[in-house]
């Protein structure tokens, strides 16, 4: 949850290095939306930790002036969970692809959702394995030809939103890389949510997915808030989640916040209650002790962290 507010601009979260994604890649939209959301919340850079897996989208932490861990394929959420438990004062964001989060790492989504760990999980869903250059992913639509399905995929695509909802997720949303202001507002809402938040992002891979393009999505998406959807209604949320791709993979695609409830404690709150205080207080003590022994680097760390330490 947000600790303090300072005036910020999206570029305050940028690094000197420019992203290396293909021109037009949906991941640029996610990067920009995330920077905007963080700026609007006025978060100090050092209060944000971003964890990613492996994939084109997982390169995002490289381009953010925040803490970052670029880990292994599929394990975004366990690593993010560890960070959040060790230091609940950090705003912890997970980023990865559909292959990473809905395939090899799918079980972690279910467990993060049912625990309600305070992590915002942004999935760049381009319906293909981008980094490995164009194989079928768990969200590839049935019949679509990829390098590993030249005969057209025979697998039924995963429906991540319905899955997260049934696993007990307390915040479930879908955005579109081609609509950055809307995506930024969703991410902002997710970042201030109590507990686990899933933000699935329709994020075209312009190089390897020639089916699910920006135009393809523009012709199908509609906004939930304009459609009068009530995000506190679980059953309605589930019905909306089933619309695409489960009931009609070429049908209308709702975007926006499907479901949200703020009355359940986050996992880190439960853990703190159990042990009487979050472990970060002990970590502080540790840095303080090093600083007192005259260590210059530790002193600098303490000074930099002063605004967010208890």
């Amino acid at each position: 949850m947000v600790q303090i507010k300072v005036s910020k601009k999206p570029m305050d979260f940028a690094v000197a290095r420019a992203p290396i994604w293909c021109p037009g890649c949906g991941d640029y939209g996610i990067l920009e939306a995330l920077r905007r959301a963080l700026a609007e919340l006025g978060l100090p850079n050092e209060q944000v930790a971003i964890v990613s897996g492996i994939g084109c989208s997982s390169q995002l932490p490289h381009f953010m002036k925040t803490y970052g861990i670029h880990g292994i394929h599929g394990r975004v959420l366990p690593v993010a969970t560890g960070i959040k438990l060790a230091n609940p004062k950090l705003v912890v964001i997970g980023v990865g692809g559909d292959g990473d989060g809905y395939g090899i790492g799918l079980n972690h989504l279910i467990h993060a959702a049912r625990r309600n760990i305070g992590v915002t999980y942004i999935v760049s869903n381009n319906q293909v394995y981008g980094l490995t250059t164009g194989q079928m992913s768990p969200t590839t639509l049935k019949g679509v030809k990829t390098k590993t399905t030249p005969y057209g995929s025979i697998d039924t695509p995963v429906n991540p939103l319905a899955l997260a909802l049934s696993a007990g997720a307390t915040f479930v949303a879908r955005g579109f890389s081609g609509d950055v202001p809307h995506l930024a507002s969703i991410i902002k809402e997710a970042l201030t949510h109590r507990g686990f938040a899933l933000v699935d992002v329709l994020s075209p891979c312009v190089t390897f997915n020639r089916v699910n393009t920006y135009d393809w999505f523009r012709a199908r998406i509609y906004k939930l808030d304009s459609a009068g959807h009530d995000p506190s209604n679980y059953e309605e949320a589930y019905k909306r989640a089933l619309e695409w791709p489960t009931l009609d993979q070429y049908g209308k695609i709702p975007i926006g916040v499907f479901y949200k409830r703020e009355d359940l404690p986050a996992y880190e709150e439960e853990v703190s209650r159990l042990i009487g205080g979050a472990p970060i207080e002990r970590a502080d003590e540790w840095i303080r002790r090093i600083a007192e022994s005259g260590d210059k680097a530790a002193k600098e760390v303490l000074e930099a962290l002063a605004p967010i330490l208890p």
Partner: protein
Amino acid sequence: MTVALEARAKAKQTLALTSNYAAAYAAKAADVDVIAVYPITPQTTIVEKISEFVDEGELRAQLIHVESEHSAMSAVVGAAAAGARTFTATSSQGLELMHEVLHIASGLRLPIVMAVPARALSAPISIHGDYSDVMNTRDTGWITLIAASAQEVYDSIIQAYRIAESVLLPVMVAYDGFLMSHTTEAVELNDEEEVRKWLPRRLDRPNLLTPEKPITMGAFAMPDYYYEIKYQVQEALLGSLDKVVEADREYGKAFGRSYGIVQSYRLEDADYIVVAYGGASWGNAREAVDEARRRGIKAGALRLRVWRPYPAEEVAKALAGVKAFAVVDRAIAFGAPAGGPVYIDTVTALRMRGIDTPGLSVIHGIGQRSMFVEDFVKVFEMLKDGERNKTVYMGLKL
């Protein structure tokens, strides 16, 4: 099969293939039944080629693109238990993720065959080649061949089915990631009908899930029998060397190519020998032998084509009586008494036979750090200058 396809399958042909494509063609020639795969660089083009074969009707295998390598190995375990001839392929992190299941495959004595274009391990992330992934599977009970050319990848995978199905152990065929997986060589393909005749399906395995003979595989073993079952794996693995030799010899008779379990280059009068594995190291080692000899050093090179079981007799025979040897390893045995995993085994093989030829452990090509022929020449020079009993980290920037 259509008449045209049949004719094509029959024809013996030479194609320009990467080692990955050669692996895919070999799996096709072996007429595998079930393939379960998950893509990872540099293995991906094997998976893609196989998908094309299935699409074009050239391979009538049950192909599944599973959700991880753990699932890929698990699926071929299941399929092999049900009697199918199986194939999979992976690299690096994928092989690491499979690790748990690698032990199941050997413990259940399943004749699975897997291709592994070898790649470095995270962290930090690297997609480039070395043998860290393969060396980490050392104690999993898999027979492990390391090929040095695309032709050898093709031939070894076909031989692997012979070996696996006779010994009842899984076989891994490894080769250089990128330096072989993505470089093109001429590969002579066999007449597929002939391959299928050479590889008849074995239906008499005791470890089959069949309603006629109900068994439970992998059941709990108490301290009174667990040890014996694991010892059987050890016995089978050590004994498999004969089957590797036999399969290679028979293959040579049928198709005109065989490799042996070690390969040697100008060993006859050599004082100093470099032991290597994989295509790039072997190519460099042979060039370096010629160059070192031009510089007046009696140099020779030895290649391990079989890594598990370790061909101790053959290596000992080559290294006994020479002045010194070096092993060039493309992996690091972190924290071990010497840096190179194959060096450690080589020294052990010699000492277990009372041979005290001194050696040098050379680490090179980590994360595909360029290995130059001159580096290998330098190894010969170091040996000649009396460098012994230590680890040299070649090509390292300090």
